[in-house]
């Protein structure tokens, strides 16, 4: 397999991730400390302000996919009554739990996933996260708290923000009981400030992809977004992104690209195919095509966060999220990304079990192609369930798409 230039900061990333999981593991064994499970764009700042160690099952789902163990576990969840058509993060995670196994064992030496004291979701990702957390809530007899975010949001209004802000504030009482103390508002402001800094740095990292050649690819981003998801608002995440940003800025200054000899610049819409991340990265390297930007990696940039108005700004960040926006708003965002990153074509991943992160199903590719004058490609696959993915079909589709770009009159 072809390999691109290595990012030197990767070792620091591994150290950070290991540190996070070891800390979580220690917290789950310590009766004095509290662990919360949280959805990846849930109210993590609030949980951190209460002093919870926070674990993100979606990250675990991605690990199951990336280690290609998901299909080993999905049948266990199906046997439990979960449909193979629902989120394959959920089915692989629940299946792994039922099997008593976790990739955290091999990666970080953990005996199991860190058991929580409370599970907190936000449905801005999808409804599946609620059902996912409810499985564990029932299993362990633990409280499952949640925020219901609007969907199909066009213009974000005060009504949207008020609604979600009130729901976040309403979490304070039950969380305070579990934490054993009330919310320290000053601490929340500090956490929100740190989280805003993580977003600022992560966005700056992603924007090195706007240069020609792009300093990083979607496949790099899918790995290096780890801290933005599981360690945002922490000093170590912010320190890490400063290191990474320095390195990528150095690439920009030297004109070094993530894909040597970059000829084509692509946008990735939709989820990664975790079990084929490396193979697809290699394919694009061979084709001299760089996936310079993605909706997915940008989903952990929360520009609205404001320490002066923590609840409302957290709410705004949750409602401004791409995934909850209307089709028209999504289309505008994608068009803006294509322009900003000077993209030659868009690849839509239609992930069978992740309809909320698949934006090819209501005519978007055709509309954008017409509006922007660039070709689009839609391929069928899945985030974790490789039974729903065809290597040959996908490779042929992508190769043919790049051939099509090469055949353009101005190519």
């Amino acid at each position, binding site marked *: 397999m072809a390999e691109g230039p290595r990012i030197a900061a990767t070792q620091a990333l591994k150290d950070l991730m290991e540190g996070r999981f070891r800390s979580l593991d220690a917290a789950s064994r310590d009766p004095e400390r509290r662990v919360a499970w949280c959805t990846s764009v849930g109210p993590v700042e609030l949980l951190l302000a209460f002093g919870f160690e926070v674990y993100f099952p979606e990250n675990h789902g991605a690990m199951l996919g990336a280690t290609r163990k998901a299909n080993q576990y999905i049948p266990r969840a199906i046997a439990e009554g979960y449909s193979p058509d629902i989120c394959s993060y959920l089915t692989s995670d629940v299946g792994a739990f039922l099997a008593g196994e976790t990739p955290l064992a091999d990666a970080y030496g953990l005996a199991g996933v860190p058991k929580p004291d409370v599970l907190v979701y936000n449905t801005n990702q999808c409804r599946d996260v609620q059902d996912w957390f409810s499985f564990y809530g029932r299993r362990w007899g633990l409280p499952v708290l949640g925020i219901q975010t609007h969907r199909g949001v066009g213009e974000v209004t005060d009504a949207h923000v008020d609604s979600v802000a009130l729901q976040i504030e309403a979490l304070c009482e039950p969380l305070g009981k579990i934490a054993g103390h009330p919310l320290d508002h000053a601490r929340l402001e500090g956490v929100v400030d740190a989280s805003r800094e993580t977003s600022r740095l992560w966005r700056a990292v992603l924007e090195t992809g706007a240069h020609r050649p792009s300093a990083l690819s979607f496949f790099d981003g899918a790995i290096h977004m780890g801290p933005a998801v599981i360690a945002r608002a922490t000093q170590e995440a912010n320190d890490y992104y400063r290191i990474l940003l320095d390195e990528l800025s150095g690439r920009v200054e030297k004109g070094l690209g993530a894909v040597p000899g970059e*000829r084509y610049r692509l946008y990735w819409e939709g989820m990664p195919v975790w079990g084929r991340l490396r193979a697809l990265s290699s*394919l694009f390297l*061979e*084709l*001299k*095509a760089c996936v310079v930007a993605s909706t997915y990696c940008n989903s952990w940039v929360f520009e609205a966060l404001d320490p002066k108005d923590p609840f409302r700004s957290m709410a705004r960040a949750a409602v401004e999220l791409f995934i909850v926006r209307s089709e028209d708003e999504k289309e505008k965002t994608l068009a803006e990304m294509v322009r900003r990153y000077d993209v030659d074509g868009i690849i839509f991943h239609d992930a069978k079990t992740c309809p909320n992160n698949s934006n090819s199903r209501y005519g978007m590719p055709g509309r954008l*192609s017409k509006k922007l004058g660039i*070709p689009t490609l839609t391929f*069928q696959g899945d985030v974790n369930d490789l039974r*729903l*993915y*065809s290597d*040959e*079909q996908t490779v*042929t*589709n992508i*190769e*043919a798409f*790049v*051939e*099509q770009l*090469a*055949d*353009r*009159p101005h*190519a």
Partner: protein
Amino acid sequence: MPDSNGYFAGIDVGSTTTKAVIVDAGGELQAAAVARSGADFERAALRTLEDALEIAGIPRSRIGRIVSTGYGRRNVPFADDRRTEIACHARGAFESARRAVTVVDVGGQDSKMIVLDDAGARLRFRMNRKCAAGTGAFLEEMARRLDVPIEALDALARHSTRTVSLGSFCTVFAATEVLAKIRAGEKPEDLAHAALRSVARQATEGESVAGPVIATGGVAEHLPIFAEILAEVLQTTVEVPAHAQACGAYGAALVARDGPTTDEPDPR
């Protein structure tokens, strides 16, 4: 063009059959050969090329450049370059059409629609989703259920007198649907026609067709009624080029003749 006095070869290693085509420097088709792909793609590619050389009556040394295509395109180590079957079917079909067309290729285990402009440039393309719907594999299964060789579907379907629909696109479910319809007294000729219409519909779903269609692939070549059914389904004219099954190999041979370009993706 590396050798204006020479010949060029295209080899399409498909999931079911391997096709080889030789063209001269002017792009004229000199020979086409077809063989089963089997389990050894490299061997199938070599054997089919040798067959084509024998038909053309020229030695291998006169082949200036070879381009491989098809699912086994990476398994042809003696090829000088490779292209996807999307590119090669488009190239081969456009050579005979020379106008804006939509190419509908139904192969053994996939199908594709490729929309070309009047210069032969690809505007867009779409492959079948990850199942046998709209492919030759679907017809093989239907023929098996009807207990006839796949080649016999054409003659059988021509005797159809009644329109029967197969609702399922899943090959296995459609097979059980055929069994249920046989039990219900439907005639094999009507079911053969229904199976071909199902492939025509499934292979072309998801792409609006505004102009003439070129049908390529083994189904179009060996079951001529398929083009007629396709024309009825799409409400447009459908042409089947000579050597429709070898159209991808023909396109690959033309790509070989055109020679490398600076913008080739060269994915090897």
